[in-house]
């Protein structure tokens, strides 16, 4: 946190323009009690992650329910920064989320927001711990729209729609897109359960994007060996014998 004399640098994130305007007005009303500087205003989680990387932000006022990347996912990505900003969630009505916030001592605002409540939240806002975020996401299960990695202090977002395959290797999972590979520290099983039908398991260590299947072929020479190829990638991926029949059923149903 910065010294009390410096203004608090705030980013407003909400998909509804009136809600952003209202927050700006209430923040202006608070100037007597707390010194704030609104450094930006965006309407979705993705832009919020980019904004926070382009300029210093102390506190993010983050709406939960937004189309595309929602507030909880945005917070999880921001948390990968070496110095994550403090986060104050805002919501109009979300009984489950509020219960989770109370349990984890997370700051949140109920819309319409009152000035004194906002001042109180701003003066004690802090960044969230990884475990807290984990708990919040459990209360609000929704697949992420992006995976993120921290590369040299910057967050790189990988759109889930761009992923061709996910392959577990030792401690990491390799994320392959048409352009390049990334290494993330997550478990393949959890990724599989989070994204459901988006990915198909073809091997103990590999999930492929079901929308990108191009062909399944038999390996010459061997009896039961099969390989699989994806759109936009020449690489042959091995299909394990155990997954092959299940995979064939799923492909038929697509």
């Amino acid at each position, binding site marked *: 946190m910065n010294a009390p004399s410096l203004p608090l640098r705030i980013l407003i994130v909400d998909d509804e323009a009136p809600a952003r305007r209202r927050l700006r007005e209430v923040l202006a009303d608070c100037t007597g009690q707390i010194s704030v500087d609104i450094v930006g205003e965006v309407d979705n989680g993705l832009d919020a992650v980019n904004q926070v990387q382009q300029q210093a932000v102390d506190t993010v006022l983050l709406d939960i329910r937004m189309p595309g990347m929602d507030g909880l996912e945005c917070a999880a990505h921001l948390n990968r920064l070496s110095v994550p900003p403090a986060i104050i969630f805002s919501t109009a*009505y979300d009984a489950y989320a509020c219960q989770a916030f109370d349990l984890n001592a997370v700051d949140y605002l109920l819309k319409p927001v009152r000035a004194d409540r906002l001042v109180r939240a701003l003066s004690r806002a802090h960044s969230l711990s990884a475990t807290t975020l984990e708990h919040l996401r459990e209360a609000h299960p929704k697949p992420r729209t992006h995976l993120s990695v921290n590369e040299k202090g910057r967050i790189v977002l990988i759109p889930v729609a761009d992923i061709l395959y996910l392959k577990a290797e030792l401690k990491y999972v390799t994320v392959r897109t048409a352009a390049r590979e990334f290494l993330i520290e997550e478990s393949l099983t959890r990724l599989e359960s989070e994204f459901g039908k988006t990915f198909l398991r073809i091997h103990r260590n590999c999930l492929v994007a079901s929308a990108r299947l191009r062909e399944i072929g038999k390996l010459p020479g061997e009896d039961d060996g099969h390989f699989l190829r994806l759109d936009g990638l020449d690489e042959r991926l091995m299909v394990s014998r155990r997954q092959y029949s299940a995979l064939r059923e799923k492909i038929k149903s697509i």
Partner: protein
Amino acid sequence: MKRKNHNNRQVELPNFCHLGVNLRIALTVEAALVSGVVARASSAPAFWAEFIELSALAQPALLLTLLALCAAGRWLRSQPYRLGVGFTLTLGVAVPVLVTLWLNPLLAGSAAFPLAGVAVFSLLMGSGLLAYFNLRARALSPAITEARLQALQARIRPHFLFNSLNAVLSLVRSDPRRAEHALENMADLFRALMGNASHLAPLEDEVALTRAYLELEQLRLGDRLQVTWHIHKMPGDALIPPLVIQPLVENAVYHGIEPQPEGGEISLNIYRSADKVHIVVRNPIAADGSHHKGNRIALANIRERLLLHFDLDAQLKLEPLGAVYQVHIVIPYTRERTQPAPTHPHRR
């Protein structure tokens, strides 16, 4: 000026032109015939022989009775209940007896049907069915109230209420006139939500309410929400259950527009075709298939209310058409008899 009130204590004769009523009468009579024949028949071939023989008389008699009841229905229902029951039973016995008199010579060879038997069977069936319809009407009245209460709870999403209040607050300083207008819309919406939902309401009032709702949503969502109305052929005086269109549109906004960053278009198409009113609401299907459970609850609620008001004569169809989700409601066209249409004190 009498409103069509389904919550009335006083029991009415059923509408004999309704598909649901006809279906119930026909099925009951058929079941009685089948069980009668089954009790007497010694083997399967004997059953079929006897059933076909009986059907030669029973089917035309049943059909003609239903036609006669439908034709006389309006007049029968205008009589006091007891008198109406008497006339209905007379008709229900007279038609089969006349049919028997007419068919008996034609069915010569096989045994002729005893007139007294036909009359007693018709009288018993008729009384039984009328007793059933009476009981059903009594049983359903509290159910409508119940459904209304249930509907009241399910209708407006708290999420919508608080977001709208927030949007109005954001206008108070910068654009007080728009804030005023928005609050007026909210007042209309909540007056309707707290009103009596067991009365049918004119279609044009429901459309005005839906417009008020959409204006509030537009305040929050701005350009993300596009609305197209196709209502130039709408019968504004048609009576429909209240709060059917608005929740459908609310669903369309919640599931089809809000989850999409770029928004989308909702189209409303309301028209009359023959004696039916059609209400068609379309919205784009959101890419992320989240929160579908709430959708089904709201639709089940509407479906139940349609059933209570119109029995089998109303339909609610859900049709995913590629990237568009469509809800199609068909309601029988009814309107208030008195002309000109009275003002409706319960709204606006």
